[in-house]
């Protein structure tokens, strides 16, 4: 059974996805509400450990459901799950925005 990874590229090493043009990779904290993004890489071991428990790893896709003002958290929707991640964590997660699906 094949999986629909976000870029359909070959499997990647643990905490960084295959090389992507630098201009297409953004810090999660800088993304906008309503964007679907694909994780490119996660920095620092501590953030990686926490992300793994929730199933966030390179090539995971999620929708940015909400972004609270004043440095508040981002709410991510991964399938039916909603997880709020503090901005300090989001600063260590780098993503590639995905084209909108109709």
């Amino acid at each position: 059974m094949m999986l629909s990874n976000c870029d359909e590229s070959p499997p990647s090493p643990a905490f960084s996805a295959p090389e992507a043009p630098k201009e297409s990779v953004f810090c999660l904290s800088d993304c906008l509400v309503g964007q679907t993004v694909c994780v490119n890489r996660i920095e620092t071991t501590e953030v990686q450990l926490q992300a793994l428990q929730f199933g966030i790893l390179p090539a995971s896709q999620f929708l940015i459901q909400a972004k609270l003002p004043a440095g508040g958290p981002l709410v991510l929707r991964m399938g039916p799950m909603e997880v709020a991640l503090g901005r300090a964590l989001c600063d260590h997660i780098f993503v590639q925005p995905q084209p909108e699906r109709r």
Partner: protein
Amino acid sequence: MAHYPIPVGEPLPPSSQMEPDLLLYGPDVDRPEMRNSTINQSPNDEEVPLSERFRSLVLVGNPNVGKSVVFHQLTGQYTQVSNFPGTTLDVPWGTMEDSALTTPWRVEDTPGVYGLAGDTDEERVAEAALWKAIQVINVVSAVTLARDLFLTQQLIDWGKPLIVLLNQMDELENSGQKIDVETLSERLGVPVIPVVATQGGVKERVIHSLEKASAGNTTPGSPTGEGLRAVEKSNPAQRLHLYGLRRHYVNVVLSQVLSTHSLTSSRSLSAWLGAQLLSPVGGFLALILILLTLYQVVGVWVAGDLVDFLENKILLATVIPAIQAYAEIFFPKDSFVYTLLVGEFGLLTMTPQYVLGVMLPLVVGFYLYLSLLEDSGVLPRVAVLMDGFLRRVGLNGRAIIPMILGLGCVTMASIATRLLTTQRERTIASVLLAITIPCSAQLAVIVGLMAKVGGFGIWLLFLLVLFLVFTVIGSVLQYVLPGQSAPLVLDLPPLRLPNLSNIFKKTWLRSKAFLLDTLPVFIVGSFLVSMLQLTGLFQLLQTMLSPLVASGLRLPSELGQVFIMGMVRRDFGVAGLYSLSDGMSPLQILVSLVVITLFVPCIASASVIWKERGPLESSFTLLASWMLAFLVGAGLSWMLALWPVL
């Protein structure tokens, strides 16, 4: 239908960073031997009788997957069930009995966890219970299987015989997913039972599957049992390697059993409401609405109408005069015993008046309202909304849970600060709770008094003063204490219509606990205050406090007794304030409410803070609260005298 977009990736590189002696158990290890060895190595073996150990069943699962409902189904006992993570802080246990069982089973309900590495108190509590267990039931939500299976695989790697209860199957279709239960069971190597715990039938299915519980298929390349436990507690790099292996394996399993209709959000009303609550405008309006309804329900209906009826029409008009008349038959009026039993602060007069007439209805009203917020799933969204602000005072959004619990009971909330990740956050939260958060009994009287003097101006001023004190203390501690607060990671449960039966049960349990906790303290308090009065010490203390109260705070000097009573118990003092408030101006009521709110926490809270935070921190907290209460009260009083807005 698309397959669930789960990235599998490559397995992590061989364990170059893993110490060889930690790789004690590979996947080929003989399972029964390994199980025996791990059971014997349990740290708490001596504490649990042999007979119980051999029938011990532990429920483990992620937060908010329905463990407590399953526990109720298995044992018939009720623990607090909520729609937000962190409801179960301790390990309640019950007995599962049935004619199909030869011997009863001890069933334990553990706090919801995402892993068992012992990083938080919840994880440590769950881990300790797990090591004692002979058998484990992993409660998993069918809706969030992609997340929950990580813990399931960890439990399998630990090597305990396991049954997986796949709960919330009724919500699976709505979530746009489909699970191949048979293949899941085959791939995990353990029985998987699909259930809807809220609809019953769990016990029969669990009993039927008890014999089939097995150790399951471990993660290829991962250590297991005691070896795994050692790695989980080792350095982060080794853990990361292990987590990577496990997540990779779990995702391979998921890719074979889980399919989904759509990736993006559901279009249900619940999802729409959830999204509105998290928008800046919708969230702000929701917070205002929550406060306004709290004011209407607790302040106007309960504190105004119900308390007035119970206290004035029932207790003061009929019950207490009857008790006094009966006491007069046996003891001369103004005698020592008469004063002690039925005098102004008597055991049989003041205790029922305050506890049954004022406190109990207010606390029931507050808990009813809090339970509604919890069970609807609104509370975690409030946590998300408040994260930005709480970070500025050295906390994160999760701290809203002890803060709101503190509005119920500061003692309980001080224990709940264990939910917070770092010692720094626990210190800040404990100090803020002890000083600035009024408990439910206090809050209810505050709301009642506010309703009595009327006007939103006084309300706003009161909230503004508390907000300023909260922010200043938090910011100072944030600046002074070394380190940083942990970032928020919070699972948001779906918004649901609360189950009324659960709401009433929870309100009943909490109110009963309040009554059992409060009644003895009130009795002792009444006794102490009566003794102080009889020996003349009460008058002496009141005289000593008089200059501070009358000149400093510009309040009637008899309010000194309120502060003395408040040292015994905060609500004890505030209830006294309620009784003395008739001749006071709105300004005096505002100042006295600010002082009594910031004043030292009650004896019960102080002792818990002492236990949780140690003598140094707790002494600092008590001293700071005493000084702040009078300084802020005096400042407010003088400011309002110069600038009379009320």
